[in-house]
């Protein structure tokens, strides 16, 4: 991050074309790629934009607030000679900003001379610390089988009408309240929450605000809000502004920062819109070919570095259009993030909360944060066994639907019972229930004990000896 003070630059009158949020400005000299512009409309009102392309004597400018009300004649443009920067300061915690980082809570501009480029810079892989500390969220489907680590990026893949906001709020509340739940990792360390809303309704933002207030965390939260009725193009900047503050807090102020980004699908929509207006060659479903790189430039702004004690953990939320996990937004997100927590429609209908579809969910970093000396020795194999058992349950259910439950073998009937209990007792928990990891492991063993020992080939024999409670007589 570098310090830059924004100063006035050249002013140009000469807009030659306006199309959607894109405007072509003629007559500027020495315009630089990606620089910020200030646009004055006929009535003297200001809005901001950014240079997307420069050629000889022209520049293509993206107007954050959209072009409504701009005219070819009455508009002038000032090139500010710098890329987009926002102020960063600790005192921004407890405050609310718009999608470009301007305060909207009636308070003053943050008092600081630290400005940072919203684009950030890539972390050098040699400077990273590989994440190994687990965060206890108190949620069995996460702690038990998809463990979240400090410095991980783990999105929630959801769909319209599912309780992803509640789940995110519960994660944030219980993870930051770790002390009470007995999780050792938050003691004596400062945490912060950076929340960015892209194109969500006001009640979503409100819901999170209330949730932060109730848990007493509000003074540790900075909110960047670009709501459904705010200009869509601004959405492209919102997560960048949020992450810029997060990086400052984590890497310069040594805080553990939890970043919640919602809804990434709306972000992608904005990107697609800009790309289409510019007539770029699309790849899948009209999204630009650089969608992967663009998303990576957000999600990779996560992790730990050797020069700081802080960390950034990201929980992006995205609603999958038509619940389709192969849609480019969830697909490319899953290719970049370190796993995904997928919410399932059927579980949700069945009244299971949180409706985490365990099988497609994954935490890639889990293996490095659990087991002996971290959670418990049997944890990795116990997790694999639960997965294997629950996967088998799906096959058995399919078979039962064809031949009928009565026709199933004895073992398969046990799987059916196991599967139902798994969903009701392991997956299902209340919004306020904060389970310790020991409790989660205990529930898991209770469920595994419903299966014959001979089915439990993922855990080792000593573990069966120690934790298996079934009345299975075979072997």
């Amino acid at each position: 991050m570098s310090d830059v003070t924004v100063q006035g630059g050249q002013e140009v009158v000469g807009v030659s074309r306006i199309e959607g949020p894109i405007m072509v400005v003629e007559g500027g000299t020495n315009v630089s790629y990606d620089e910020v512009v200030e646009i004055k409309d006929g009535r003297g009102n200001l809005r901001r934009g950014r240079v997307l392309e420069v050629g000889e004597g022209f520049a293509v400018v993206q107007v954050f607030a959209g072009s409504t009300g701009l005219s070819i004649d009455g508009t002038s443009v000032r090139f500010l000679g710098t890329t987009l920067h926002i102020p960063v300061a600790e005192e921004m915690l407890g405050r609310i900003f718009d999608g470009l980082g301007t305060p909207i809570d009636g308070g003053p501009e943050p008092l600081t001379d630290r400005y940072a480029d919203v684009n950030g810079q890539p972390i050098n892989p040699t400077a990273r610390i590989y994440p190994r500390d687990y965060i206890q969220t108190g949620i069995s489907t996460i702690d038990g089988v998809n463990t979240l680590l400090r410095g991980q990026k783990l999105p929630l893949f959801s769909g319209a009408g599912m309780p992803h906001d509640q789940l995110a709020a519960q994660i944030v509340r219980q993870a930051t309240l770790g002390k009470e739940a007995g999780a050792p990792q938050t003691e004596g360390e400062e945490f912060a929450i950076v929340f960015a809303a892209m194109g969500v309704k006001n009640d979503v933002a409100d819901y999170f605000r209330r949730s932060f207030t109730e848990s007493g965390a509000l003074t540790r939260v900075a909110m960047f809000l670009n709501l459904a009725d705010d200009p869509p193009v601004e959405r492209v900047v919102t997560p960048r502004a949020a992450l810029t503050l997060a990086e400052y807090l984590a890497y310069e102020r040594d805080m553990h920062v939890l970043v919640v980004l919602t809804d990434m699908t709306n972000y992608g929509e904005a990107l697609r819109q800009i790309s289409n207006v510019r007539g770029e060659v699309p790849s899948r479903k009209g999204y630009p070919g650089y969608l992967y790189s663009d998303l990576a430039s957000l999600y990779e702004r996560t992790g730990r570095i050797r020069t700081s004690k802080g960390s950034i953990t990201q929980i992006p939320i995205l609603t999958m259009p038509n619940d389709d996990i192969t849609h480019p937004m969830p697909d490319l997100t899953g290719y970049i993030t370190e796993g995904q927590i997928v919410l399932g429609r059927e579980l949700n209908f069945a009244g299971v909360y949180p409706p985490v579809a365990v099988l497609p969910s994954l935490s890639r970093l889990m293996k490095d944060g659990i087991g002996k000396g971290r959670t418990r020795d049997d944890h990795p194999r116990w997790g694999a066994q639960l997965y294997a058992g629950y996967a088998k349950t799906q096959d058995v259910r399919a078979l039962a639907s064809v031949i009928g439950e009565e026709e199933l073998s004895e073992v398969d009937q046990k799987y059916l019972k196991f599967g139902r209990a798994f969903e009701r007792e392991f997956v299902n928990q209340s919004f306020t229930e904060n389970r310790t990891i020991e409790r989660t492991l205990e529930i898991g063993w209770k469920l595994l004990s419903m299966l014959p020992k001979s089915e439990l080939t993922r855990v080792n024999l000593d573990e069966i000896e120690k934790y298996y409670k079934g009345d299975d007589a075979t072997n």
Partner: protein
Amino acid sequence: MSDEVGKITWISGPVVRARGSRKVGMLELVEVGTERLVGEVIGLKGDQMTVQVYEETAGMQTGAPIYGTGLPLSVELGPGLIQSIYDGVQRPLPLIEEAMGSFINRGARFDSISREKKWKYTPQVKVGDEVKGGAILGVAMETDTFEHRVMLNPDDSGTITWVAPAGEYTVTEPIAKLKMGKEEKTLTMLQRWPVRRARPFVNRRGANIPLITGQRILDTFFPVAKGGAAGIPGPFGSGKTVTQHSIAKWADAEVIVYIGCGERGNEMTEVLQEFPHLIDPRSGRPLMERTVLIANTSNMPVAAREASIYTGITIAEYYRDMGYHVALMADSTSRWAEALREVSGRLEEMPAEEGYPAYLAGRLAEFYERAGYVNNLNGSQGSVSIVGAVSPPGGDFSEPVTQHTKRFIRCFWALDKSLASARHFPAINWLDSYSEYLEDVASWWREKTGKDWLGMRNRAMELLSEESRLSQIVKLVGPDALPFTERMVLETTRLIREGILQQNATEAVDAYSSIEKQIRMLELVLYFHDRGMAIVKRGAPISLIHDLPVVDRIIRAKSTVTNEELHKFEEIQKEIDEQMGQLDAEYRS
């Protein structure tokens, strides 16, 4: 040495246009703008040039100068490559960190190979020797045990007129002098090679030695030969990276080149932090001492991502030329293809399928063509094996990168989402995968193990495909409808799947299986099958076989029997004999 050759007229992301000299060459390395960012000329038209820039262009202005270098994009080759970690255009990441801190800033200029470090060098030529391109001039110790064979540039040849005595030298100090025609040239340990040009060799040899990876589903079922090419496609989370890491750890190659191409930063950090502490079972040295890392992660500039593949393969060829077996991992080639697409899109080229440029297939072919087991110019033999990960959008293998890749590889390891979600790892689908090297490497297996590996492997595959047919029936009518002989097949294939195919990369004993262990496991399972089948045919109910205690023993053998205690397989076999012998006796009447 670099003159201004033009002025920038247009900028869009990593692509810049300029007008100026007509002398600039295609693929010439240029320096762009006042900050002199590294770029490469990718298009010429009259006095217009198009340049892809390997660094972030934000803040760059039109009218700014472009400087020519007269050279193509090249890598530096010499001792010091091993244990290095570079970005896509061979900038050393540790030095960037030292100079700029935790974040990569642009404009960094560092030598790829240290000019200060001294290497213990022993000459192997003498004055008067006639030497040709590729000739080994001497040996530098690159680690305590790794011999770096210093070679004459493939384009040079002549008579040695002076040789430095054995001693310690930096890569720029003279080690010999060469008379080429009238000219005398001073030779050092350092050379440059243009990355887009394959290094020459005499000819290809047959690829008939397997690259042993210690991964059972690969070595036993779908082997790749040394000098061969394999593709590993799969949706996100199916195991591309873990498999590539496993190969990088355990493959019996002398040098590993690992390219993190447009993937996660943490995955490179993981390798960096883990490899120095893992011991290579063959050399007894830390794995890092045979590894070169190229890290151009997803958030690093996209044009350098495109270059990273070439940087890696050129380094791999260089070690091959010394007579080594090199294995190269590229994770992921799809991100590289996307980099091509991104640059092509900015150039407004006519797209072919899914926005990819029409030359995608050609580029993939060129890359995989650089794999091979060859006779080198200096008479030695070496190989480059390529394992390329493919990341198909939505996991759909019909997309262009997967489809084109299939044309240029002979080994296809198809990852399967449903196996991964059941935590069956490696989630390589045994029915969709194939290897065209089976016959080629069969005699190697016979020599090494004295056993009919191919015969056993094919029997196991037949059982697995029989299982797939039977499962279709089971899905409709349940398992009880099957005769016991067919259910015996299902008992055995469960042992194959859970006992052999499943392999946990994170568990110490299971992570690496020697070929002896692999063949013993296969033999044991087939033995179990034959004995079981005989009993079942005599009318014994399948449940008796299913409930035998030895079944659990066999499934657990992968993680309970280490590579050093293979005699335990004799014990297991004895248990089979005892337990089945009893049944056999009961039903013999």
